[in-house]
């Protein structure tokens, strides 16, 4: 938690609010993420081989070929979608219990990261599906469809958060939505096992280790780098939410002071 703010922003006086969202820790995290992205790019596009193996007929080769490189983004994005939206649900539950704006802002930051990652998962999946499955979209695949529903549910969550409202009321409504949407996360994640005959997705890749050598290394590197990127984005988004709240509060106080000054000047002007 200390990486986010060190302590609850609600207990800090307004003058203690920083002017930006960066810090020494986030700069180190950002540098690590950048280095990881470069390494991932090199492994995914240059060092790792395309997926290709001998076909049933002599002289032919089958496999995903270069499309497999999309998996180094697709699978990590899917995994961190679950983590981000699961954290959003957990933070929403804690908000309802503790009623602390800290947890509400954490839920908001994680939901935004989760929706972006879910969109990346869907888009890379569609691009991968075209050459490998022969279609952009497969209605018969239960994981594809449930992932889209998950995306729409949390897009609705963000839509609701974007509507102007009293912070406390908005936080309470958002926490109910964030918690309710989490029902879908285990369904999406386990759909491949629960509906084995209604999916084109293969079952868990990492658990069974069907892939090897540099492909596995690149996939694990992708998961680590996507995790760093998600954390870096979440920290900054959390701090932006904090600064937004501070600015909103300061704006309200300034407007009140202005009205009081106007009322005071009016009273002096009307006195004999």
């Amino acid at each position, binding site marked *: 938690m200390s990486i986010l703010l060190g302590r609850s922003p609600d207990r800090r006086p307004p003058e203690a609010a920083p002017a930006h969202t960066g810090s020494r820790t986030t700069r180190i995290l950002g540098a690590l993420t950048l280095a990881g992205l470069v390494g991932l790019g090199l492994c995914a596009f240059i060092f790792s081989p395309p997926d290709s193996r001998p076909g049933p007929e002599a002289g032919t080769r089958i496999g995903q070929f270069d499309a497999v490189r999309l998996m180094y983004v697709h699978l990590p994005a899917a995994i961190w979608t679950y983590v981000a939206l699961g954290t959003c649900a957990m933070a929403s539950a804690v908000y*309802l219990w503790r009623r602390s704006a800290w947890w509400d802002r954490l839920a908001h930051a994680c939901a935004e990261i989760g929706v972006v990652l879910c969109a990346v998962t869907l888009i890379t999946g569609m691009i991968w599906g075209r050459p490998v499955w022969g279609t952009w979209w497969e209605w018969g695949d239960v994981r594809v469809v449930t992932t889209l*529903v998950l995306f*729409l*549910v949390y*897009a*609705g969550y963000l*839509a*609701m958060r974007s*509507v102007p*409202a009293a912070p*406390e*009321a908005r936080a*309470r*409504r958002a*926490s*109910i*939505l964030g*918690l*309710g949407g989490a*029902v879908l996360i285990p369904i999406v994640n386990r759909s491949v096992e629960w509906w084995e005959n209604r999916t084109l997705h293969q079952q868990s890749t990492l658990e069974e280790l069907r892939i090897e050598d540099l492909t596995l290394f690149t996939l694990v590197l992708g998961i680590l780098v996507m995790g760093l990127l998600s954390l870096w984005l979440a920290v900054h988004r959390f701090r932006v939410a904090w600064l937004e709240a501070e600015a909103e509060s300061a704006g309200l106080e300034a407007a009140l002071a202005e009205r009081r000054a106007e009322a005071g000047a009016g009273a002096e002007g009307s006195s004999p």
Partner: protein
Amino acid sequence: MREVLLVAAKDLRIESRSRVLLFQVAPFAVATLVLLGFALDADRSALRHFSPGLFWVAVLLTALLAAQRSVAVEHAGRAADALLLSATSPARIFAGKALALAAQLAALELLMGVAMVVLYDARVEHFGLAVASAAAATVGIAAAGTLYGVLAAPMGVRETLLPVLLLPVFAPVLIGATRAFGDALGTAAVNGWAWFGLLGLFALVYAVFGALAYGPLLEAEA
């Protein structure tokens, strides 16, 4: 239970006096079925084959209007504040409002069912399955509609926000009810009772979640 029935009776009494359900929502439901028929080029065999899906799409669109209406009556004249002051527990208020919404939806589904038989030439082969799955789906839709209705209600953008929040949540109902009706109407070779189980689970989850979440939501409004 008495308080639940009182809240439900209040909502139904308002509807019977305003006639919004009869003169606005019911014509919308039938018009939706007619337009969906045009979309399939009025092909009788295609309409019969797809009648379960078309019926439930129309029901869900109609349920959006009914859910909005259910919340709107509480906001007119700040009736929600009076309801809170009555000291009735939020869970009972939720149950009463969901019950009233379910009763209205059941009436609309009956009307739309008749329209489906007439317009789409649908034939019910397993009456018990059709009624049971419609009942489970209706309870689920009413519970989710009541909960999400009050989520979107006070934000001044209810008409646009509620569909964004509610339609993805309705997706499991649409899938389950379409499959169950497919079996009941003999248009799909599936086990309709298994899908009835899914509908029952959805209804149970949203009834319990709604009863628990309604209190914090009403507090947020107060």
